[in-house]
């Protein structure tokens, strides 16, 4: 009986889990392995563990003309600023959508959703001239503005969901006790919203860190971000896969670390948003 239940558990839990995990994780294993293989081993018979390990690609990464450290700094600045701007604007907007019924509410909510429907490429060219006229082209602010537009809708919808799940009675009690709306928001809603804000912030940061299409247009050599630097590793003559995969590993490490610390709260935060389901 016990063995049968173990078998059942194996078939319904461990087997599909392992299969899915192998599918999900193998590509990362593979780029890591590629990044530490010597070049002769990359272009020959395929080995699943390098016969010789070399960190040459990583060394090359920081000594080539592509300035990877400065790209990391640029990405960090753009992503952090975007997180602050986008999170502030979306928290305020979500509070209005969640707690007030006002004229134009539906139209505005629909507008937030619809703004993601326009293909990025459609916005690129007009935005380029707008940024140039504002004299913010090639500064982090160009990216911050662009990124805010596509992180806002999801953040607003997410936070709106979170707030809808916080019972109104909490604020009503605070109002009865002599708080005004602002202090009720700051003292009651904000602390409860903490995990959701962290979750939404991590989402905004990651999205900005990873963005490519705007970054390639709105940055120059000095201000380019990591994805652009990564793409620029592809030379005219072909791809140096060792170098590229080393760059890839370096790129995802910071977001992975951040994500690992935040993921529990992210799931918690999403739970709050989904309870109404």
């Amino acid at each position: 009986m016990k063995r049968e239940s173990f078998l059942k558990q194996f078939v319904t839990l461990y087997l599909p889990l392992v299969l899915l995990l192998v599918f999900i994780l193998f590509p990362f294993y593979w780029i890591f392995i590629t990044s530490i293989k010597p070049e002769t081993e990359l272009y020959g018979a395929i080995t699943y563990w390098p016969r010789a390990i070399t960190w040459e690609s990583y060394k090359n990464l920081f000594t080539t003309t592509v300035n990877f450290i400065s790209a990391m700094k640029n990405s960090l600045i753009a992503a952090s600023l975007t997180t602050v701007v986008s999170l502030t604007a979306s928290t305020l907007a979500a509070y209005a959508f969640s707690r007030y019924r006002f004229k134009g509410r539906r139209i505005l909510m629909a507008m937030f959703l619809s703004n993601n429907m326009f293909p990025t490429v459609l916005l690129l060219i007009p935005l380029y001239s707008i940024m140039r006229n504002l004299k913010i082209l090639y500064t982090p602010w160009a990216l911050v503005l662009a990124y805010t537009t596509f992180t806002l809708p999801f953040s607003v919808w997410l936070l709106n969901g979170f707030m809808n799940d916080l019972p109104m009675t909490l604020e009503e009690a605070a109002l009865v006790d002599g708080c005004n709306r602002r202090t009720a928001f700051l003292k009651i809603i904000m602390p409860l919203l903490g995990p959701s804000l962290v979750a939404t912030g991590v989402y905004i940061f990651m999205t900005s860190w990873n963005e490519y299409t705007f970054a390639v247009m709105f940055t120059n050599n000095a201000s380019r971000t990591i994805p652009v630097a990564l793409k620029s590793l592809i030379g005219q003559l072909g791809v140096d896969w060792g170098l590229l995969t080393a760059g890839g590993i370096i790129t995802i490490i910071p977001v992975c670390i951040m994500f690992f610390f935040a993921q529990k709260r992210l799931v918690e935060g999403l739970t709050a948003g989904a309870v109404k389901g």
Partner: protein
Amino acid sequence: MVKKKSIYPYLLVAPAVLIILCVVFIPVVNAIRMSFQNYDLRKPKDIAFIGLANYAALFKDPLFWKSLIKTIQWVVFGVGFQFLFGFILALLLNRSFRGRGVVRAVSLIPWVTPGVLIGLMWRWMYDGNYGVVNDILQKLHITGDNIAFLANPRTAFPAVIVTIVWQGIPFFALMILAALQGIPYELYEAADIDGASPVQKLFRITIPSIRNTIMITLLLRIIWVANSVDVIFNMTEGGPAYATQTLSVYVFNKANILNLGYSSAMAIMLAILLCSVAVPYLIFTFRGEDD
């Protein structure tokens, strides 16, 4: 709910609305204007209002129709399998087993990986000479000779779909897992007492309970996947022989050769297509609200 007239809500949404207006709606208006113009930066002297000519040309363009069909397949198969596997992963991660926290965290990594890197790493794995996918398939005796997956029109499209599925599984798993944790346990206990089978519990309790999350996640994902350029562009640039050219990649390619009028017209068609999915959804969502 505050219903009396107040200026507060407008002040609160003002910053967000202002940003959206400046950075999305003004460019969109510009793009709509361009779509009625013969806007080709290679021939700047010829730029003029040409009415619906771009749209007329569009409907006669066989590549447009081909890209449209590719887009629908891309979204249906891409999002469909993301949802299916994401759902399965969420159900598995919702069970208790040792090391669940770690498994949950690492299984979400594709979500935090840049699209450029995803495109490039899969391109390396699909490589016709040194690609690991060929090696695995041959070791499993599924295929015989090396296949240049991304160079063959028959395999390129399924190959990029596998990649987008891989990218999207974590997002669905994350959202659905979150929703699953909100389902009251008593519902399952009651179902057990009534002798419900696991399949019945799935379709009668689990899915109805998380319907809202499924809907919003599907919609967001459909929009993102339909608009995504970076994965396909970094793998195949829409080739070979347009086998992987979805509408957004077609727009990107046309804009790259500076035919902005035509690409704007096409982008607007894509936006209309997405609206036709989103608007019924919005009506459906708002109907459920009490006001």
